[in-house]
């Protein structure tokens, strides 16, 4: 039976009432009266709270945002929405939005308004000068990712190779390994699976509502849900079993599973014979890495490792080790090998291209605008070295390395940086280092709010329309969750632009016109959308009516074959347990155990780990009034510490502690020190402390999240894991002591 604890709601309520100017609220009676009289429009869009693109209807009353509803049938959210959807939508009225173009003036991060025309003129002059002097290859475009086409067209025109996404600070170890081993990013078929193992994947914290709906349905029909995580994460709360693991040792756990599958002959030998390349090489390198060896490293009993392997094999091919996303794949020196071992465990189960196992994404075949060919200059090598011989040859050049931009600027490789819908000063390691992006000759930020990158690094800020104000080209809903049918969604403008902002396409049209580049974008978003939809026989009107359109051709199971031979998208057409490109560059092709770079030793030392909270998406949501109010209700920004460790240090729940780390670059070292209240918990492995990833904002102009909590990036140096380019952000030991300011 649940007992309610009396809390100070009366006090809190009155205080909130007094402090609240309530621009959004109006009283209930006039609201009801108004509702009856006012026009309500329903416009389809997709959420911008993370990159899942949950399909939703936006309800607009008298031109003002009212509410949202998930679109039923959309595979990513099945009619539901998480808190972030509402939070970021309401932020269209956030006073911290950038309301007109701005130019940096004087010292101290001061900005003055500038007209679009003048901004385009000044940026074009500077950019042209930089290109003339240093070639176009000295220009870089950094972006979260998505809408690559427009930026890419500009980069192609000026001969710039360096398009960088945020992915190296997120999940490149995964995409790199999967691409090289099988040439596809397969997704877990939760609808038909009977045994799901999640390690480093928390669909209820890094919320994807469609995944949670499937997981809850699977649970009801008797499927097993196992979560391996140092923290009892939100997904573990509803799982059949939570298995805590020593952070940094997931590779040992995966290799222990693989060893059990092979030594006990539980693996699908037929699948391996037909569709796997490099099995012997893997086995020869890992023969002695038994479940017992793994257990001693990863703190999961050997019997548990074996029983999981057996259960997975018993349910195969309708079982999987979830391929994961950010969790584990930006975290350790072994991140690339963790992703490799993930592929291997799944392949041993023979679940590739199988219902209930891993399936490819259903993808619509969009059309393309036919544009006149242009004479384009040759590009030099990528400045970040991704895919470049003698630099980072095995890193995917399509994603790049984001965390090293200040170095590229210091070396003179990059002179001008455009930063679009991206905030590396908060989401990449070591913000003090990232601030040096400001040293480029030209830094243009294209944001929606006063994020850290704009405030501390940008010379010009060109604000984009809010996502509810934008028309965007159709997107495919695919990836992460297996779903048989291709689905198309589209974002329509629901609200008229509130401020003097522009769409990205119009920003680039204005800029290129000022650079005297003629007709680089001879189309509108509508025209591009029409061209994309034409081969699918969908009209824009139909998209506007449905919001989410499903196409009839399903993805079918079965390993890709051509002329009776395996035809996966790898060199051999098979699943390659050994990556040739790694061997070519002097590294081991198959994964073998690699210990963490650093480990905690003393009573006051902890590994700093992080994860998502269900109501925040890294820095994108951290200035949201509504979402920050949820954080305030639940002490959301506190640091988690295991109770036994806390007791040793005399720390009680709610105490403030000082968290310190040394950030090292070669011989030089800098001390970072932050204070934060502690949540003392039973729900965490004793060797680590955990912070949610949405906090630690340091832009004073984004006041709702300003100085709330700390961020894992505060304590990590900007390092590059050489195989995949990730940041290894959990190879960080912090010391913690009670007290602080």
């Amino acid at each position: 039976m649940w007992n309610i604890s009396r809390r100070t709601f009366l006090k809190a309520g009155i205080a909130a009432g007094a402090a609240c100017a309530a621009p959004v609220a109006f009283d209930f009676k006039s609201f009801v009266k108004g509702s009856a009289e006012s026009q309500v429009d329903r416009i389809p869009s997709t959420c911008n709270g993370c990159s899942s693109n949950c399909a939703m209807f936006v309800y607009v009353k008298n031109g003002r945002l009212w509410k949202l509803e998930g679109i039923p049938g959309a595979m990513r959210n099945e009619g539901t929405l998480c808190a972030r959807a509402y939070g970021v939508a309401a932020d269209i009225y956030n006073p911290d939005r950038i309301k007109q173009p701005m130019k940096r003036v004087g010292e101290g991060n001061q900005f003055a308004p500038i007209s679009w025309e003048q901004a385009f003129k000044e940026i074009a002059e500077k950019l042209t000068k930089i290109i003339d002097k240093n070639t176009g290859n000295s220009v870089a475009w950094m972006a979260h990712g998505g809408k690559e086409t427009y930026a890419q067209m500009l980069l192609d025109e000026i001969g710039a190779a360096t398009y960088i996404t945020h992915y190296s600070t997120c999940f490149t170890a995964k995409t790199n390994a999967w691409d090289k081993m099988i040439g596809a990013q397969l997704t877990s078929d939760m609808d038909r699976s009977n045994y799901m193992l999640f390690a480093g994947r928390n669909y209820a914290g890094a919320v994807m509502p469609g995944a949670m709906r499937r997981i809850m349905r699977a649970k009801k029909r008797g499927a097993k849900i196992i979560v391996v995580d140092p923290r009892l994460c939100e997904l573990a709360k509803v799982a059949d079993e939570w298995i805590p693991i020593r952070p940094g040792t997931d590779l040992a756990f995966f290799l222990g599973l693989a060893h059990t599958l092979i030594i006990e002959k539980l693996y699908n030998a037929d699948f391996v014979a037909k569709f796997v390349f490099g099995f012997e090489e893997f086995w020869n390198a890992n023969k002695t890495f038994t479940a017992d060896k793994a257990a001693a490293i990863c703190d999961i009993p050997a019997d548990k490792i074996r029983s999981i392997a057996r259960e997975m094999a018993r349910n195969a091919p309708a079982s999987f080790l979830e391929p994961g996303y950010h969790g584990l794949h930006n975290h350790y020196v072994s991140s690339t090998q963790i992703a490799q071992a993930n592929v291997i465990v799944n392949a041993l189960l023979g679940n590739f291209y199988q219902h209930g196992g891993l399936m490819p994404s259903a993808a619509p075949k969009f059309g393309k605008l036919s544009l006149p060919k242009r004479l384009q200059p040759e590009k030099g090598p990528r400045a970040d070295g991704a895919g470049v011989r003698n630099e980072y040859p095995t890193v995917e050049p399509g994603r790049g390395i984001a965390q090293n931009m200040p170095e590229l600027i210091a070396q003179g490789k990059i002179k001008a940086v455009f930063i679009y819908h991206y905030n590396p000063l908060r989401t990449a390691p070591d913000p003090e280092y990232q601030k040096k992006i400001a040293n480029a000759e030209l830094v243009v930020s294209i944001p929606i709010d006063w994020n850290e990158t704009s405030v501390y690094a940008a010379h010009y800020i060109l604000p984009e329309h809010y996502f509810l104000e934008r028309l965007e080209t159709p997107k495919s809903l695919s990836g992460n969750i297996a779903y048989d049918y291709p689905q198309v969604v589209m974002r329509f403008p629901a609200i008229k632009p509130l401020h003097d902002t522009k769409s990205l396409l119009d920003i680039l049209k204005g800029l290129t016109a000022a650079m005297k580049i003629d007709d680089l974008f001879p189309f509108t978003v509508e025209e591009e959308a029409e061209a994309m939809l034409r081969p699918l026989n969908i009209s824009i009107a139909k998209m506007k009516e449905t919001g989410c359109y499903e196409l009839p051709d399903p993805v079918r199971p079965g390993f890709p074959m051509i002329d009776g031979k395996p035809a996966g998208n790898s060199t051999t057409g098979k699943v390659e347990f050994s990556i040739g490109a790694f061997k070519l560059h002097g590294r081991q092709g198959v994964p073998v155990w690699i210990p963490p770079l650093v480990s905690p030793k003393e009573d006051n030392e902890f590994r700093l780990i992080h994860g998502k909270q269900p109501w925040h998406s890294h820095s994108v949501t951290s200035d949201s009034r509504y979402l920050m109010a949820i954080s305030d209700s639940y002490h959301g920004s506190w640091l988690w510490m295991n109770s036994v460790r806390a007791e040793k240090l005399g720390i009680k729940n709610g105490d403030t502690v000082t968290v310190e780390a040394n950030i090292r670059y070669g011989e030089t070292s800098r001390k970072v020190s932050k204070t934060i209240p502690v949540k003392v918990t039973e729900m965490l492995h004793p060797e680590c402390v955990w912070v949610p990833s949405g906090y630690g904002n340091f832009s004073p102009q984004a006041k709702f999240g300003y100085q709330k909590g700390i961020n894992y990036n505060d304590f990590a140096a900007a390092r590059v894991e050489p195989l995949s380019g990730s940041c290894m952000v959990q190879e960080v030991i912090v010391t913690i002591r009670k007290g602080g300011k």
Partner: protein
Amino acid sequence: MPHYAMLIDAARCTGCAACRIACQMQWQLPPEIFFNRLEFREQGKYPHVQQEIVPVQCMHCDHPPCATVCPTQATYKRDDGLVLIDESKCIGCKYCVVACPYDVRQVNERGIPEKCRFCAGHIENGGQPPCVTTCMNTVRVFGDLDDPDSEISRQMKEKNVYRLAEYKGTKPRVFYVKNGG
């Protein structure tokens, strides 16, 4: 006359708070005023620990103490079971805030002790409260207990249910699924 009620399966909740903010949008509430909260608890010792999350909101009691103590009958019980507030009668004395055993009243910017309205004005023609429809884990079921074919009637029959603080005699219209029920 319908008999509105809600069934909450707290074991399914993963604490995302979408219910809270979907409701805030539906009723255009400011960030600090919310009609459903989450209670987080840990049970056990590492590594044998479980987390409990219980969504709590106005229970729309059949014997609502908040209505009993209201000196002006601003808080009243509608025939279909909804406990509502007539703002024109409210004098802001906050007796209801103190009387509520579930601690769900919040004083809004106009001095009115607000709470969940069971979406009065939205449900009468078959609309579902946004806290129900937005929930990815289907924690809540809302409907008419007088309709034997309604989802809530069906689930109430199938499942072992209880009400919070039943000993208070408030007879809530919000029911909870017992663990393992």
